[in-house]
């Protein structure tokens, strides 16, 4: 495996967990699949639609999201919104995210200090 491909895979792994948190936060307002993809991309979160769509279903089956079909528009659309359980999970994930961020930032600071020899 080339360095570039390996780095790519590791970055993907790093991002994977954050997508779930991002979806739970962004689904506060009911949104359908395609609008979620574009909203997330606009917010700077790189996510492929084929990654997001199955994730939405998985989060729904876990009770973190709920969905309704809106048939009032030109074609039926499935809208997802976060459940109470999803909000609690997002809160826990957010707290963990801050803790990890704090620790990793600290580690990066130390390694940078060692690298600079200061």
């Amino acid at each position, binding site marked *: 495996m080339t360095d570039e491909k390996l780095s790519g895979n590791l970055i993907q792994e790093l991002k994977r967990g954050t997508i779930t948190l991002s979806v739970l936060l962004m689904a506060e307002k009911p949104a359908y699949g395609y609008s979620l993809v574009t909203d997330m991309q606009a917010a700077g979160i790189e996510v492929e639609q084929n990654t997001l769509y199955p994730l939405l279903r998985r989060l729904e089956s876990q009770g973190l999201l709920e969905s309704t079909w809106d048939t009032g528009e030109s*074609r039926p659309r499935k809208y997802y919104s976060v459940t109470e359980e999803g909000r609690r999970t997002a809160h826990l994930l957010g707290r963990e995210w801050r803790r990890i961020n704090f620790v990793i930032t600290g580690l990066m600071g130390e390694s940078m200090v060692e690298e600079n020899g200061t």
Partner: protein
Amino acid sequence: MKIVEQYLRAVGSKLPWNSRKDITEELRSLLLDQIEADFGLEPSEKELKESITRFGSPGQVAARYRSGRQVISPGLTELYFMIMAIMAGAMLLAFSTVFIVEAFQDMPVGKVLVKGILMIFANSFGGWLSGVGALTLTFIILSRFIKSSINIDEGWTVEDLKDVTVGNKIESRAESIFSIVFLFIFIVLMNFYPSILTLGENLFTRSGLMLGHRVVIEVFRRYIGLLTILWAAGIIFRVATLHKGEKGKGLILGELGLSAAEALVSGIMFFDSRLYYDVNGWIGFKVILAIILVVNLAEIGAGVFRMVRDRVVEA
């Protein structure tokens, strides 16, 4: 947007059976959203193909809705468990019927009655185990050796969809499920208790009506192997129908072949003079055979008509 339907059909064939409809509906909505966002409300054929290509190959898209390599293909797993449950119910029904029929003749009491009731469960379990073995092997073979006609791997292009047929929607899953149950029951009943026909004849005459003939059970036994093959083929056809979710050309041809075989066998049995005694009319088993013959001929006629009509519409 035929190409979109062909694409969704190709994805659907790789999705788990029980959630296929829901996922396909959602994918249709998502894909159309993307197409509209990219090319507006009236995209050209070329633009549709471009959007579909970007959406991913059918195999890649379906794979994201499932995970891991399994002994039985994910598209078949739910169906496998459903047939297992159907077999358990059908065995119980069949052996209960055999018990009731025998009980009417022998009038068992006490220990014999209790033993007979226990034997219903023992026989059902034994029959079910044998059935599960055959079912598992069949599904493993189906999963391993029957390759999809839809190219899903690397090198997939949207042009591969042109051969995908968007068949007639199956109107009722319940119809297929009931057929499977009853075919299992027929197989068990006729193989374990063919003289149930004589009992049926006796019950008929008790009602005061006259029978036009009676069935020679020893001759009827010779047909049971052939009938079992037909019923087993019927079960396989129904399972395939449930699995596919819609009738493509292959299933329509299979249905026609099955109807033709059933019509042929019922016709042969109808005219086999060795099969009957005390013959002085049609009333009796021959009427059932005549109905089967007529129904199957009608199904063949309707099937051929639909095929011709579809071909004309396509042209």
